[in-house]
């Protein structure tokens, strides 16, 4: 059985790869490369997997909320991802990389009796990124 909880945060970012020239960055990222950045209302879904405990729950919702709040929301909400999130200062602040950072931040403090199964982040209603735990080690980008 899986349980999914949804959270929201608002943050700014700018896509710019140090490995590319200014012109290449502008061509590749388009508006996302405008020099002063821009922001989104991100929606984060965290899915956990396990069995039902005697209290009828897979996981204590407040314990899950506490980890997500401390490890993710408190660090990204109303922040500039490129500047304020240390793990992203060396990476392009794409939502792909953000999903990887979120997963690692959650697992770094994971004390719940369930498995983290999925991290899903929508940047806008049209752009959605999912990281399944089984494939989490694939596709790390710089």
């Amino acid at each position: 059985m899986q349980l999914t909880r949804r959270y929201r945060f608002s943050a700014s970012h700018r896509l710019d790869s140090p490995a590319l020239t200014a012109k290449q960055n502008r061509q590749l990222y388009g508006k996302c490369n405008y020099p002063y950045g821009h922001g989104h209302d991100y929606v984060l879904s965290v899915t956990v997997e396990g069995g039902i405990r005697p209290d009828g729950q897979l996981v204590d919702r407040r314990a899950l909320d506490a980890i997500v709040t401390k490890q993710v929301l408190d660090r990204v909400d109303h922040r500039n991802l490129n500047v304020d999130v240390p793990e992203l200062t060396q990476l392009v602040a794409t939502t792909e990389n953000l999903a990887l950072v979120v997963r690692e931040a959650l697992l770094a403090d994971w004390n719940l009796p369930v498995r983290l199964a999925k991290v899903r982040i929508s940047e806008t209603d049209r752009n959605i990124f999912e990281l399944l735990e089984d494939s989490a080690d694939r596709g790390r980008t710089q």
Partner: protein
Amino acid sequence: MLLTRKAEFSASHVCADPALSPAENQAIYGPNANPNGHGHNYVLEVTVEGDPDPVTGMVFDLRELKIILNEEVVEPMDHRFLNREVEPFDRVIPTTENLALEIWKRLEQRIDRTNIRLKNVRVYETQDLYVDYGGPACS
């Protein structure tokens, strides 16, 4: 191929174990343990797996699926107090997890047939909390 049908029902519930004190229940279930109950607009998504029938072109007759969902879930649960009016929630705590389990039990026998099986039950308690249950094999 997967086919998903959605249904909604609104119901009230209390999540509390009668063997525990009010303080212990608050510690586990928070405001969900408030004794007089509260309600949600539940959303149910039922996914069926099978191959399209060569004659009808359908995995499952959606009219029949709608009738099954209505008879097994919506009619018995909509605008009800789950703990008091819907079996087995007089003795099973109506968490979203247990609700998904109960809905699975009610639907499985009516949906499963040759080459067609109930694949997943998703219950949204709110837009920000949902449970997926894929049957005993997936625990």
